[in-house]
């Protein structure tokens, strides 16, 4: 009971997700099938991984506008590297992850040692990453090893491979964030950077690690985009940035830092994806969909600001 009370917002998020999923299945023309479930999980995994990337930066009181650009850059890199011999592909995957980590760490260095506000840093670096992606591949193209793609985007004995992937990632992250010193320190810094510093925590290094983790998860997103689309596309970035922020907010991750979990972020991402699928099946004219998607995002992000109405001391509005 106590556990439920402490995780009330997470419980509400997951309940909302289940309700939306039930509606989605009910109105889906093909009903419940392994195929529908697999497509749903593949879509959800794309945004879910990006939401985890955003989660790490938001956890330490930042916001990452370069999530989308890193996704695009790593997707383009994968379209060159993930083809050929199995050994070459494995090396390619490692190279793409390293590329993502470098992008994230570059953001972290500017924020931690350069004292540049995260929003400015990632706006600028995001532009650089998008530019690099365009230079590497001005138009969509390239190829991905199809066997690998099939293995990761179909089902295994009726269970979507992407669902297994997502659950493994979430389990590993949840355990390591909850029980490792690094994880605890990230929450401590997000909760109060000053107190954490007074406590003798290595604030700089741990923040850097959070940005690095964010870069790695953006790269994982880019890799999974490659698995789903089988090409490299430099223009896929923008949607991931805004959607990942909306997903973490929906998932109960506080934009003020120190609160939230990867599970919440992924649940938020699945909710967003389900809503946009619902719109697809609801017979809205396709041209009206971006408008309603934007509306949902705006509402989702506004939810995070609802706390303003509970503030009883006007001075807190200025903090």
């Amino acid at each position: 009971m106590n556990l439920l009370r402490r995780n009330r917002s997470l419980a509400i998020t997951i309940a909302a997700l289940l309700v939306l999923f039930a509606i989605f299945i009910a109105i889906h023309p093909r009903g419940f099938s392994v195929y529908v479930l697999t497509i749903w999980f593949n879509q959800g995994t794309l945004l879910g991984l990006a939401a985890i990337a955003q989660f790490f930066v938001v956890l330490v009181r930042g916001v990452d506008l370069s999530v989308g650009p890193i996704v695009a850059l790593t997707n383009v890199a994968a379209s060159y590297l993930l083809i050929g011999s199995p050994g070459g592909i494995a090396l390619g995957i490692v190279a793409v992850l390293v590329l993502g980590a470098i992008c994230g760490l570059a953001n972290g260095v500017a924020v931690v040692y350069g004292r540049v506000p995260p929003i400015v840093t990632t706006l600028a670096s995001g532009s650089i990453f998008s530019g690099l992606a365009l230079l590497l591949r001005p138009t969509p193209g390239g190829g991905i090893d199809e066997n690998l793609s099939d293995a990761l985007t179909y089902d295994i004995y009726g269970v979507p491979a992407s669902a297994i992937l997502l659950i493994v990632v979430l389990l590993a992250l949840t355990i390591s964030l909850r029980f490792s010193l690094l994880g605890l320190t990230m929450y401590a810094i997000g909760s109060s950077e000053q107190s954490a510093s007074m406590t003798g925590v290595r604030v700089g290094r741990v923040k850097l690690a959070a940005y690095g983790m964010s870069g790695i998860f953006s790269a994982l997103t880019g890799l999974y985009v490659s698995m789903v689309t089988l090409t490299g596309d430099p223009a896929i970035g923008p949607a991931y940035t805004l959607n990942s922020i909306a997903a973490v907010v929906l998932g109960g991750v506080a934009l003020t830092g120190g609160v939230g979990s990867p599970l919440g972020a992924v649940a938020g991402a699945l909710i967003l994806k389900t809503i946009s699928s619902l719109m697809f099946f609801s017979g809205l004219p396709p041209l009206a969909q971006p408008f309603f998607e934007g509306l949902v995002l705006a509402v989702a992000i506004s939810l995070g600001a609802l706390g303003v109405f509970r503030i009883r001391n006007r001075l807190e509005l200025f903090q």
Partner: protein
Amino acid sequence: MAEALVRLKSVSKSYGGVPALTDVDFHCEPGLVHAILGENGAGKSTLMKLLAGVIQPDAGEIALSGRTTRLASPREAAQQGIVCMFQELSLMPHLSVGDNIVISAPRTRFGFLRRAAYDDARATLNGIGATGISLSARASELSLAERQLVEIAKALFRKPRLLILDEATSALTSELVETVFGVLRELKRRGVAILFISHRMHEVDAIADRISVFRNGRHIDTFDVGTRSPKEVIGLMIGRSLEELFPPRGATPPDDAPVVLNVSDLSWNGQLHNVDLQVRQGEIVGLGGLDGQGQQHLMHAVFGVLRKVSGRIEVNGRQINGVLPSQAKRSEIGLALVPEDRKTEGLILDMSVTENLRLAALSRAPFGILGLDTETEQRIRRLIDRLSLICGSFDAPVATLSGGNQQKVVLAKWLALSPKCLLLMDPTRGIDLPTKAQLYQLLRELAREGLAVVLHSTDYEELIHLCDRVYVFYNGRTVRQLTGDELTPNALIEASMNMPLPAGIRS
């Protein structure tokens, strides 16, 4: 004599040209409780921050066990065995009590925290009598006293060689203070050096072996406990007698003087409960008690900073519930509030002295864009003279002024509006003594001219010697009202703790 654990050699530190510590020599020894006494702004907290590695000295050096050391961060200081429990709390609000304690001295295997550390954290809490605090409770859910206990446990958990306690026990009941002192005596026996900062003389007498007095950033004297009388100690702290510092009180305003500020049954957000308070014309009314018991909230409620305040607030018989600060300062209401932190709330540091002086009165100028009327301008001029405001140039940023002169600017900017009731939040914090004496004199004069003054102070001497009447706050309530001869240090402390002191500690 045992070798000094920590020795400061001619250490100086200043902030933006304002000296906080000047040429300080100081040392402390293992197995000794060393009390540091001094007024607000005497340099105590600067000394602590130097030792804890939060700031570095401008000149001079710090030696640990005879070796000169640079303490570049709180982390490095902790590695040298120096652990500080700061007055401004260092708990992470969203983390559990257990995590807060364990993270200060983590033990890991393959990067994962060992569960045994949590058992030790439990044992440390139990040792200081905090058996009722659950390890899984969030820090933000704790009361002020509980947070203080967790802070102490956190400091002890790191097994310090030098433990610095800065007002560590200010919110604790006397039973808990005794339990904590028991632990400190045990540490002392094991050879830990303890620096103890407290405003409460009876606590210093109960635990300290040696006392060092600081004043205006200088180390004035060090002596063993019991070799000086309390009066001598206070004399050392303020550098003059109390009679010189405070102006004579004069006649108390008559009972039929009109009530300017009348607060009745005021409650807010579970942090203020049914507060009743009256301030008459010409009266200086103090708000006492421990820090953060609702005094600040009351001032904010009256000035219209808080939302959803219940009860009744009247100024000169006119109900003003629900007004905004911009309305409260209008001449028909006539409130002025000097906020707690002059650097962030009282002044705009980058703007010039003149601009800051005009800021509050701007709304009285037509459309707020045309110049102020000559009457207001003249009033500001007269206030500058009256306050003997010293600054290089009125066009220089107000940040270049000393703390005392900055506070004068804040006061002048509000007095320029000719308020009827002046709310002051700890106006003399961090201000040098001559300026303090000037401010006391001015407040007394203003009261004599008919201003109603409400003064929140953490300084007992101010409440006792300046105020006509003191409301003591505890837990968001006014628990006692002290007037005239009832205003004694002991009565204030008793009322602040909301209980009589046990006979043993009573002096």
